[in-house]
C-alpha cells in the first residue's frame, strides 16, 4: 500500500523534472553559436531571405511565445523537421533511439552478468588468489578508454577471427543482437568494473552484519543466506549506482556507435551538432533526458522494492 503511494508520489515528481528539461533544451539551443536561417541559406544569404525564413520558423516571435509553441509541439509529438535531412525529427528519433536503447540495455545486461557473480566470488574469497585476479582484471577494464577497447575487440574478433561483423546494425532482431554484441561488450567492460567494485564492498559489509549471523544461526541453507539475506541487502546501494551509470552509458554510446558504425542516436547527435541541425539536437536531447529520468524512476522503484525503509 505505501509502496503504491510511493510510486505515485515518485511519478508526480517527474513533472517538474520534465518542465526543467524542456526549458533547458530550449534555452541551450538558442545559446549555440550561429543561427538556423544562415545554416539553411548559407553564409551569403541576403537579409530579406533571412527575415523570411525567420518568420516561417517563428523565430521572429518573442522568446516566451516561442517557448509556448515549443512546449505545445513537443506534447503533440511534433519536434519539427530536420534542417539537413528534411524529415520529421520525431521519425528520426523513432528510427535511431531504439538502436541506442537496445545497445545500452545489452551493455547493462552483460555488465550485470559479469559483475554480480564475480563480485560475490571476490568478496567471499577476499584476499585469496581468485579475488586478486578478478579485481586485477576489472581494474584493467576500468582504466582503458572505451574507444580503445572497442578498437581492440574489433581487430581481434571481427577483423582477425571473423566471429562478429565489423559494424552496422543488421536486419531483424537477432541480427541486431549479433551486430550489437561487440559494441555492447565494449560499453559493459567499464560499467561492470564499477558495479563489481561497489557490489564487492557492499557484500563484504553485509556478510559481517549481525542479521547474516542470525540467519545462519537459524539453520538456513548457505545459498539462501547468500541470496535472500546478503545479496538483497548488498544490491541496495549497487542499484542506485547502476541507475546513475546507465545515464553515463547512454553518453558512452556516442563514442561506441562511432567506432562500430552503428546508426544510433549517438551518431545522429554528433552529425546534427556538426550540421547545426537545431531541431534534431533539441528533439534528441529531450528524448534522451526523458529516457534517463525514466531510468532513474525505475531505479528508485527497484530500490524501494528492495528496501522498504526507502518507501515510507
Amino acid at each position, binding site marked *: 500500500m505505501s509502496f503504491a503511494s510511493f510510486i505515485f508520489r515518485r511519478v508526480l515528481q517527474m513533472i517538474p523534472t520534465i518542465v526543467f528539461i524542456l526549458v533547458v533544451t530550449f534555452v541551450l539551443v538558442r545559446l549555440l553559436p550561429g543561427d538556423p536561417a544562415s545554416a539553411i541559406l548559407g553564409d551569403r544569404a541576403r537579409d530579406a531571405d533571412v527575415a523570411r525564413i525567420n518568420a516561417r520558423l517563428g523565430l521572429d516571435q518573442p522568446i516566451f511565445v516561442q517557448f509556448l509553441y515549443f512546449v505545445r509541439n513537443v506534447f503533440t509529438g511534433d519536434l519539427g523537421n530536420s534542417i539537413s535531412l528534411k524529415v520529421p525529427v520525431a521519425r528520426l528519433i523513432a528510427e535511431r533511439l531504439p538502436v541506442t536503447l537496445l545497445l545500452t540495455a545489452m551493455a547493462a545486461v552483460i555488465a550485470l552478468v559479469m559483475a554480480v557473480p564475480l563480485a560475490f566470488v571476490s568478496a567471499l574469497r577476499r584476499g585469496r588468489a581468485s579475488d586478486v585476479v578478478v579485481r586485477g582484471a576489472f581494474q584493467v577494464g576500468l582504466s582503458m578508454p572505451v574507444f580503445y577497447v572497442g578498437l581492440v575487440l574489433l581487430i581481434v574478433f571481427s577483423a582477425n577471427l571473423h566471429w562478429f561483423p565489423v559494424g552496422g546494425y543488421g536486419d531483424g532482431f537477432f541480427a541486431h543482437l549479433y551486430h550489437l554484441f561487440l559494441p555492447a561488450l565494449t560499453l559493459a567492460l567499464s560499467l561492470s568494473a564499477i558495479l563489481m567494485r561497489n557490489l564487492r564492498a557492499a557484500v563484504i559489509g553485509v556478510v*559481517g*552484519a*549481525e*542479521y547474516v*549471523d*542470525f*540467519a*545462519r*544461526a*537459524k*539453520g*538456513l*541453507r*548457505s545459498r*539462501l543466506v547468500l541470496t*535472500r*539475506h546478503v545479496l*538483497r*541487502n548488498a544490491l*541496495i546501494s549497487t542499484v542506485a549506482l547502476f541507475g546513475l551509470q546507465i545515464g553515463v552509458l547512454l553518453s558512452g554510446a556516442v563514442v561506441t556507435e562511432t567506432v562500430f558504425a552503428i546508426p544510433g542516436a549517438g551518431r545522429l547527435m554528433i552529425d546534427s551538432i556538426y550540421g547545426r541541425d537545431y531541431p534534431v539536437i533539441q528533439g534528441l536531447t529531450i528524448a534522451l533526458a526523458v529516457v534517463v529520468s525514466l531510468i532513474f524512476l525505475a531505479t528508485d522503484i527497484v530500490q524501494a522494492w*528492495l*528496501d*522498504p*525503509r526507502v518507501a515510507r
Partner: protein
Amino acid sequence: MSAKTDGLHVRGLCATFETPRGPARAVDGVDLDIAPGEVFGLVGESGSGKSVTLRALMRLVHPPGRVEGNVAWQGRDLMAMKPEELRRMRGGEIAMIFQEPMTALNPVLPVRVQIEENLRAHTDMNRRERRARALELLDIVGIPAAARRLDEYPHQFSGGMRQRVMIAIALASSPKLLLADEPTTALDVTIQDQILKLLLDLRDEFSMSVVFVTHDLGVVASLCDRMAVMYAGRIVETGTVSEVFATPHHPYTRGLLGSVPHGGAERTMLASIEGTPPGLASLPAGCAFHPRCEFATDECRRERPALEPFAPGRSVACFHHERVARAEELA
C-alpha cells in the same frame, strides 16, 4: 568424562583470532555443563569472551577466527558435524538470540518471511501451516494484533517488540537449547523485565535449557539456576546462583557483586573494580586478574591458577579463594 547424553557439555573450548600483535585467545579453555531445563548465567565484563563463547558453540565465529575444543550436545559432537547436520542443529535444536534486535533482524524482509524461513528450514509444514504457526508464535511472545504485524518490517516495531520478534523467530522450530546473548541489554528497564519473564515462561512451555550471557547480575539473580563468571576468556568461578551470591570465592566475582547497588541499604559508595580488563593479545603472566586484585601474591604473578572444584557443584580459579570467602563473611 562419563558419557553424558543429555544437555550440553563443553570441554576446553577455545576461540583464537589472529591480530597484528600475535594471536588473541578470546575464549581460552572453557568448560560448561548445561542440564536439560536449566537456566545458566554466563557473566562477565565487556570483552571477557562471553559472547564469543556463545558464537563458538554455534560455530558462528567468522574466519580467520579459529574454534577448538569439544562440544557435545545430546551426545553428538557439534565440532565434528558435517555442514548439513550442523545446519539442522542450528535453529532446529539450538537457537540463538542476539543483543541488538535492530541489527540482528534483516531490515529488508517482513517479519513473516523471517519466521517462516526458519520453519521451512526445520519442519515439513506446508505454506498454510507455516502461516498459522508464524501467527501463533507472535501471539506466544505477546505481540498484539499479530495478524496485522506479520507483514511489517523490523523498523516498524519498537525496541521491546523487536526483541519479541527475534525470540519468536528463534523459537519457531521449538529448540531444546536457547543461547541468549544479552537479549535485554538494549532495552528499557521495564521492557527488560517483561522480556525476562517471557523467556522464563517460554523455558517452561518449550522445556528448554537456556544459556544467558549478561553483564547484569540482577538478571542472573532473578533468572538463572547456576552461573559461571568469565574473565579474560576463562571461567574463574562457577556454582549455583544462590551460593555464588552468598559467598563468592573469586576476588573478581566479589568485585562484581560489590558493584551492584543493594536496595534498602543506607547510601554508601558503590564499590568498583580498579583498573580495566587486560587486552587479549597482551595478557599478564600468571593469573590474568592479578593486576587488579587486592589479594594478589607473588604466586599469582607467576602461575595461572586452574579452575578447580572446592565444594560439590562449586569451582574457582584462585589460589587464595578461602581468604576471599572469609573476607566476604567479615564484610
